[in-house]
């Protein structure tokens, strides 16, 4: 495929996945708040900002860490470039530029989600965001499902897979690195269990974990599962292996992206039982960034779109 097309497909997938991941974090947090024994309201909203990497930006623009303020910031605040609304809008803008590469079903799902998100703004949503967040999750999952069902397995498909899985791995690793310390803290049984359930839900792996291990919850097992399980579709290793497979079948002219991701996949595959969780997570996050940079330089040429005259010249018609 064209380099520009690859670029847009990869970012379409990353943005739509990012919108879904942020929605899931909000959703899980809203539900957790309803439980009587959760006493750390402010902390969990701050964790949310840390998990999406926008804590500092929020402080610059937002001020107090309250449920409505964080929710608005993460849903559509103009100062937040990674808000759900901005991600959906950018996913759609990227897809629009390569629409002929998508199946019409894929485009329609994305376009519908975009229309839904751009038409619903208001305090009602912030107070009761359940439907809104569920729609974003459904929209993203429908898009990804329809992609699997309709798009031929070529390079275009692989770039979408690469974007989605790299984003998902990044998101899971960020959540773990924000939350892992609290999992290992001494706490009464119900609190500790609630924390583990919370982390599993934030990554979207609660049900999968229950099927995998119906035993008592244990912090190290939860962490190992979210990091290293090969069957869990949202675990870090699973996602990175998918990225590696996608890169191998794209096999461009450079080996650098494959090398960047291959190293971290190897490390995770052969991780020791008693590994240092925090340090490993830092290496995962660094590898994800490095891979993203290698992908960009190997497959996408740098393109500068100039506003003004460029847009004007495009407006010729007959």
């Amino acid at each position, binding site marked *: *495929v*064209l*380099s*520009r*097309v*690859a670029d847009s497909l990869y970012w379409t997938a990353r943005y739509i996945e990012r919108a879904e991941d942020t929605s899931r974090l909000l959703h899980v947090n809203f539900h957790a708040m309803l439980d009587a024994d959760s006493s750390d309201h402010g902390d969990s909203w701050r964790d949310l900002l840390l998990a999406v990497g926008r804590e500092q930006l929020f402080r610059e623009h937002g001020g107090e860490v309250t449920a409505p303020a964080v929710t608005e910031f993460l849903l559509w605040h103009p100062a937040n470039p990674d808000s759900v609304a901005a991600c959906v*809008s950018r996913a759609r*803008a990227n897809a*629009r*530029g*390569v*629409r*002929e590469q998508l199946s*019409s079903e894929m*485009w*329609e799902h994305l*376009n*519908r989600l975009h*229309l839904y998100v*751009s038409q619903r703004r208001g305090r009602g949503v912030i107070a009761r965001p359940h439907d809104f967040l569920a729609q974003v999750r459904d929209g993203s999952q429908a898009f990804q499902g329809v992609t699997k069902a309709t798009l031929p397995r070529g*390079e275009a498909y692989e770039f979408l897979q690469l974007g989605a899985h790299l984003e998902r791995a990044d998101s899971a690793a960020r959540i773990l690195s924000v939350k892992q310390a609290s999992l290992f803290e001494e706490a009464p049984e119900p609190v500790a269990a609630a924390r583990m359930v919370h982390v599993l839900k934030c990554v979207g792996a609660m049900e999968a974990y229950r099927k995998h291990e119906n035993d008592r919850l244990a912090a190290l097992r939860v962490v190992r599962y979210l990091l290293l399980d090969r069957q869990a579709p949202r675990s870090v290793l699973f996602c990175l292996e998918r990225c590696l497979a996608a890169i191998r079948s*794209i096999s*461009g*002219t450079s080996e650098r992206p494959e090398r960047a991701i291959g190293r971290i996949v190897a490390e995770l595959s052969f991780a020791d039982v008693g590994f240092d969780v925090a340090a490993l997570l830092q290496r995962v996050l660094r590898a994800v960034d490095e891979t993203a940079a290698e992908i960009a330089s190997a*497959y996408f*040429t740098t*393109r500068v779109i*100039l506003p003004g*005259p*460029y*847009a004007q*010249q*495009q*407006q*010729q*018609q*007959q």
Partner: protein
Amino acid sequence: VRLSQANLLGEPYEPGAFFDEMYEGTGTPRTHYRALAEQLAGLSAEEFEERRHAVGVSFLNQGIGFTVYGEDESLERIFPFDLIPRVIPRAEWDLLERGLVQRVRALNLFLADIYHRQRILADGRIPPGLVFGARQFRREMIGIDPPGGVYAHIAGVDLIRDADGRYLVLEDNLRVPSGASYMLENRAAMKRSFAQLFHEHGVLGIDHYPQELLAALRSVAPPSATAPTIVLLTPGVHNSAYFEHSFLARHMGIELVDGGDLLCHDDFVYMRTTQGLERVDVIYRRVDDEFLDPLAFKKDSLLGTPGLLNAYRAGNVTLANALGTGVADDKAVYKYVPEMIRYYLGEEPVLDNVPTYLAADERERGYILDHLDELVVKTVDGSGGYGMLIGPASTAAERERFRGQIQSDPRSFVAQPTISLSRMPIYVDEVRPAHIDLRPFVLSGSVTTVVPGGLTRAALRAGSLVVNSSQGGGSKDTWVLRS
């Protein structure tokens, strides 16, 4: 059949001085509209509105729109669509098809001639000054032999009907005509909303248009390309017809590229892919001549690809349409198309022109200036309904402005009598008559073909004569009947 008042079609209107497509007299449908009128009469306004809404929602969901895309996404508008189809009987279509093929063949022969020996000028059939003075005449094209001798691979010929119902050619659009995607989407929308009507009418299919277009493009590939790579070159997402570019690329299964995706090296054109450079043989370009190659034309064009003209001149890539086709859709040269048909084909034109006065001609200029309040004045290379004076609807100030412009630059203007475009019912809150035209798409490769139908455009603003989508026009599905 006389229709009652208690149905969707409402109270019959007076055809007045206009030719009405649907009714012969007040409320009496023509034979080929009878079945449709009966069906529509059986619908309530609510039922009709419901289907109209469904089409609107589906266009919105599919992002079928035509306006520009800037920072503000609300600028994207859906293409206004009317659910009452235009019906053309087979015999009428056969005549149109013959006329269109004849006309486009003559236009292609004309282009080949004026970019080579210029026989038609030497024989005194067209004033040379008119051709060489046309802004769209491209000297760069002289001596170039496009494969198959085809210049205008895609032509969008605008047809109108006068007060007697006679079809006339209003314009030949030979540069980058738009609208085929709307023709196809309109049909898809009608099939979804009124499947029953199709069973009863026997409507000829048009869905093969993208394949016909692809076949035409493949047939004009450079002879050296055995398995030609065909791409569609778009100005980009900000272009008002971007939807169409993307639509056609998807339905033909070819790459949609912009100028930056292409690269010229040693007179060959390549596209930049993740696997390296890939050679391109045919470019269906939807970018105007002047923007194609900053080395040859506008130096500040960001839409084109440097070196494209040299690759084209070397015969290593085909451009569709060819460069310089605009000289043949110049509105002054238009006057001589019937002459071209006689000269090159030795036939009488099947379809007539609208009478046209050239401001460049001193006598005709006098007539134009004396009759500004009756005539339609157009710039010779305008398109999209911009830069027109519609005499009967104009103010004295507008007429004076045009008078000044005509006197200072006569070659740039022509005038035509104001034609009372035919009308037919549209539904906007209620059913009322609106003026319409028809743009069929004529494809030329190794053969010249027309898919049975076209884009019927309707002036949605009450009384308006301008049907261009950029000027508030909408469109209708166009049905050519099997018998």
